[in-house]
């Protein structure tokens, strides 16, 4: 156990380091963006109005002060970290003075709900079917599914989503194609809202699962078809080990290690949001927030979302590393 403890400490330290480096890189890149939030705000405020040039110069000065863009970069950098340690990303510049954390808090449940669900479903179903297809190589319906998965998973996601939308929103309009829930339904734990959320998530979820399931399926199938030639599988077969045990503890269990790593990363990746899903299905979430933030030159917002994403992925990688010895007992010796 002390060996494991040491390993965990090391890993934890690495996690901190990775998050630190990652957020710094994001900080630097967001700050070299040529988009000037002040100009962006001024344009938004004035482009439809009749505002005199002197007034604009005036406005520029006060905005710079308001957005805290004055002061040298060292001060800005230090105060950035000071705020982050208090889980505060400061105000959003494009939705001033709303705090970035509140914008993220609003978008996160949608993104998390949709993506965690679809990732888990496509992972488990894809792997299960993939394992079966790798084991029962001559099963017709599994073969057919394999062809389907192979043909479907390279289709650009955008096309899949758009086709689903056109089929179920236009040709046979039975599913909602916009928003996370129906209009004028109050958010909260009431049946109407929950049903509405479920109903609205069908198409986005379906599109994500259709695209996601294929690579897990194909990956698992090829892993399994390698594993079934391993001596221990052949031996267990000769030994008459029960089929379900074979499948579970001998084949899937051994094929699972790389897939679990993949799952952790996909789960971490959900903090990136699903920009195209959100765009096509008008689904609320982090992706739109991020792209909007980039457009508006809103570093506060972009950094906030990016940092959440960085922490999210690192955390799931950390967790997977910590539990990896449970998945593959051979690894503990190596670490």
């Amino acid at each position, binding site marked *: 156990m002390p060996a494991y403890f040491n390993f965990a400490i090391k890993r934890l330290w690495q996690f901190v380091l990775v998050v630190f480096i*990652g957020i710094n890189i994001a900080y630097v890149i967001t700050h070299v963006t040529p988009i000037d939030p002040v100009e962006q705000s001024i344009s938004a405020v004035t482009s439809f109005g009749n505002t005199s040039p002197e007034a604009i110069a005036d406005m520029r000065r006060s905005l710079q002060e308001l957005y805290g863009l004055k002061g040298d970069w060292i001060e800005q950098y230090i105060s950035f970290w000071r705020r982050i340690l208090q889980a505060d990303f400061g105000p959003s510049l494009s939705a001033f003075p709303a705090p970035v954390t509140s914008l993220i808090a609003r978008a996160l449940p949608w993104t998390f709900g949709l993506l965690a669900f679809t990732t888990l479903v496509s992972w488990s179903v894809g792997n299960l079917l993939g394992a079966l297809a790798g084991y029962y190589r001559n099963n017709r319906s599994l073969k057919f599914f394999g062809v389907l998965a192979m043909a479907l998973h390279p289709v650009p996601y955008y096309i899949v989503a758009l086709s689903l939308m056109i089929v179920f929103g236009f040709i046979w309009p039975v599913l909602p194609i916009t928003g996370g829930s129906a209009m004028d339904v109050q958010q909260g734990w009431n049946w109407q809202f929950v049903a509405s959320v479920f109903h609205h998530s069908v198409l986005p979820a379906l599109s994500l699962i259709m695209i996601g399931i294929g690579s897990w399926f194909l990956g698992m199938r090829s892993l399994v078809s390698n594993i079934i030639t391993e001596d221990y599988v052949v031996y267990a077969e000769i030994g008459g080990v029960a089929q379900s045990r074979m499948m579970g503890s001998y084949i899937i269990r051994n094929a699972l290690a790389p897939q679990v790593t993949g799952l952790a990363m996909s789960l971490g990746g959900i903090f*990136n949001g699903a920009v195209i899903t959100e765009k096509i299905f008008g689904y609320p979430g982090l992706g739109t927030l991020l792209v909007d933030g980039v457009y508006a030159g809103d570093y506060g917002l972009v950094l906030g979302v*990016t940092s959440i994403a*960085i922490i999210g992925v*690192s955390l799931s990688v950390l967790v997977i590393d910590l539990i990896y010895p449970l998945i593959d007992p051979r690894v503990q010796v190596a670490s």
Partner: protein
Amino acid sequence: MKRIIFDLLKYNNEFRIGVFLILIVMTMAGLSFFSPYPPNDVFVVPPDAPPSADYWLGTTSRGQDVFWQLSIAIRNTLAFGLLVALLSRVISIVVGLSSGYLGGWVDRVLMAINDTFIVIPLFPILILFYFVLRDSMSTILLALIMSSLGWAYDSRLIRSVAMSLKTREFTGTSVFSGMTIFEILRREHLPYVLPIIFSTTLNNMNWSIGLEVTLAVLGFMDINTPTIGGMIYWANQHTAIVAGIWWWVTFPVLTVVATFVGLYLIAVSINEYIDPRSRLSRMGGGQS
């Protein structure tokens, strides 16, 4: 090598279909050199014509012939995917194998770098790069950036394979037999990670082309270089699907799908040929 390809071609159906698809795609790409129209010019043919004898795949709302536009687009897209895949493969193999095998501080340092690359969310970074570089963001530069961002995931995968290989006996045997680290990695481990490299190369091409399409759909692209994503972008700008100009979207998508299915089938069948285990099981388990 020639023989392998010949054998595969003659006797492996999957490989044949794969080669067939890729040949079509490559021919398509090759034809771009004979295109009668400059790739970026618009309104060189009547717009919105459906597929016909004159315009095999129809014309776009921008007055471009879909066939010729597609040929240059697939050429650029293939070159792009290949460049990203190759460059990022080099990094991920080197990092993954050395990290997995050497372990210790090398592993920790490499994995710290690796994990940083994994956790940095790609998408915003790409968009930010796009803003910073603006019109100097060519397709080639995008490929470079993507390959330097897109290796980390796979190198972790390769590392995990290398780590489990390391605990197998033959590694120890090789160490005692005095092979150098490089030799061990190359001769003992590479064959085992080769299947993974094959599938990751494919996935990486898939990923990079997919991301190219995504960026293009969102409008973050170099519109001076026609690509598949670019075609979809323009079609989208002209609401081609609801306007009934389906051929503008369908043919590029079919081409991308053909490319991927083709590459996948080729990779799978070559893999089978190379991988001693699956080959053995086909050949009939060694007559000892």
